[in-house]
């Protein structure tokens, strides 16, 4: 059955790396029964951390979706000296270990900031760190789609009298919407799990600036692995729901696109 080899291998790969470990995590989370799970999840620190994490991640994903669009636009449809350099720089937040990112942001935008811009130990600092690490997603999701966009339709529309904002809203954005949503989904999911770069600039104060992954780490270091797994499961589930929702939205755009 040759045609099952490919999908079979893909599924095996996915299982070994993702499905099994997550299943083990979920098993661990419920290994002491549902009451322990619920207790872990409803603790004040957990609730505060989860709330902060989810809200901050949503905000950053949305904001970077817009920023990513603008940046991708400028990179694809504009020409200026040094464009290649700018293009190259965008992936860097990704290639740098989170501890470097965190420390750099702290140095530049903390108490010793050369610009006298101090966002350390605040929730704004969290937004900075998250924006930094998720920017590549927002840009690189839209960029290739934008580059592949068939200009024909836009040009046809404008030659038929559509205004440039009409072209933008009715033709370009709907084509980009699936990619933007994909990028926002990636950004959200990454932001939700981000740890290293956030803790340094945020101050990591419980109930104020402690994110969920930091609380999970604390639990795992306090011999409360079951509780750590429990909160991880919640975090992953929420991210999964958001991703599924985005998937639904993307398919909606796809189908209406194909008219």
């Amino acid at each position, binding site marked *: 059955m*040759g*045609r099952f*080899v*490919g*999908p*079979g*291998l*893909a599924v095996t*790969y996915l299982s070994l790396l993702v499905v099994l470990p997550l299943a083990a995590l979920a098993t661990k989370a419920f290994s002491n029964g549902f009451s322990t799970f619920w207790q872990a999840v409803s*603790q*004040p*620190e957990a609730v*505060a951390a989860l709330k902060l994490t989810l809200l901050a991640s949503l905000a950053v994903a949305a904001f970077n979706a817009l920023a990513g669009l603008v940046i991708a636009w400028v990179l694809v449809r504009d020409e200026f000296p040094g464009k290649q350099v700018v293009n190259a720089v965008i992936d860097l937040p990704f290639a740098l270990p989170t501890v470097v990112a965190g*420390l750099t942001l*702290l*140095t530049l935008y*903390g*108490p*010793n900031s050369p610009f006298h811009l101090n966002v*350390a*130990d605040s929730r704004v600092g969290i937004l900075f760190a998250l924006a930094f690490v998720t920017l590549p997603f927002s840009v690189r999701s839209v960029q290739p789609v934008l580059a592949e966009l*068939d200009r*024909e*339709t836009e040009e046809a529309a404008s030659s038929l009298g559509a205004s440039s904002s009409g072209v933008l809203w009715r033709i370009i954005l709907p*084509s980009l919407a699936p990619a933007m949503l994909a990028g926002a989904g990636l950004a959200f999911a990454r932001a939700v799990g981000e740890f290293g770069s956030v*803790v*340094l600039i945020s*101050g*990591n*104060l*419980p*109930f*104020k600036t*402690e994110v969920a992954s*930091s609380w999970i*780490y*604390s*639990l*795992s*270091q*306090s*011999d*409360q692995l079951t*509780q750590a797994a429990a909160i991880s499961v919640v975090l992953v589930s929420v991210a999964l729901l958001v991703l599924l929702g985005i998937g639904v939205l993307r398919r909606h755009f*796809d*189908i209406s*696109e*194909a*008219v």
Partner: protein
Amino acid sequence: MPSQYQRPSIMRWFRHRTAIRLGAVAMLASMVSLVVAAAFPAAADAAPSGSVSLVAYSTPKPAYAALIKAFNATAAGKSVTFSQSFGASGSQATSVVDGLPADVVNFSLSPDMQKLVKAGIVSSKWNSGPTQGMVTNSIVSFVVRKGNPKHITDWGSLVKSGVKIITPNPFSSGSAKWNLMAAYGAQLAMGRSKAQATAYLTQLLKHTAAQPSSASNALQTFLSGEGDVLIDYEDDALYAKSKGEPITIITPPQTILIQNPIAVTTHSANPTAAKAFVAYLLSPAGQKVWGKQGYRPVLPSVAAGFKFPKPKKLFTIASLGGWTKVNTIFFTPSTGVVAKIEQGLGVSTASS
């Protein structure tokens, strides 16, 4: 014109068969190489005889560089090689339980050693030796900006208005636990009641501007300009000073004696060499090297030869009930004393 997306039929599936096959072959090849890599000997096993795996907490890495060099210069250690792993004390302990190969383990505090005892990796008699299983001492100190601009001198000055404290998160950092118990114990040593000592902890945490996840993160945060005073191990502070960082170290008048445990594992692959190394670390020669690195020797005879600051009142964790009890009462997440304090502070300041 935007392309049409059509519902594919079974026929189209076959069309991609070959492409998928190619991809499958590529993946298979990569997976094979992965398995082959896995079949290589494990990172630190089956090494030439005379290799010792050292797993320790993060701070003593530079110290061990000096110690291993000195050990290799002795007759016993001439042909011993080392593989070294350093990291957060609790994480290292967990890793060893999870299978990280280790012959000699050295942690920041004894509960981490207890994890290994529980897992049967270290004998329950590890602390029955003359130094109760400890290899180095230190104390909890204050690190302030050079010149001490905020005039920090004692625990009371930490909670003066406008003073911002940096101390690691006690749920992820052993150093933070030492710090908080030093603060608590200092209050008791000053004659205050337990309730007053707990109230002091509340003040301390209220003044805490940041709780990084580890001691080294805390040091980095402090050196980046955050906060007025960092609570830290004395040996860590001394190391930073030796690297030229612009800091001043203040010894609190009352503080806790930090005791770092060491042991040879029961299933050590090379017990002879491992035991020889630990013996060296506990010998006068080894203790002298520790001392030069900023750690207070556990051997009184060697300690006498160093001029470490003498706090007026130095107490141990034993006087506070021992780590097992203290861990449960103070540091259980969400129900311990510290957690309750933070909940109280959080609820009142977590608006918006």
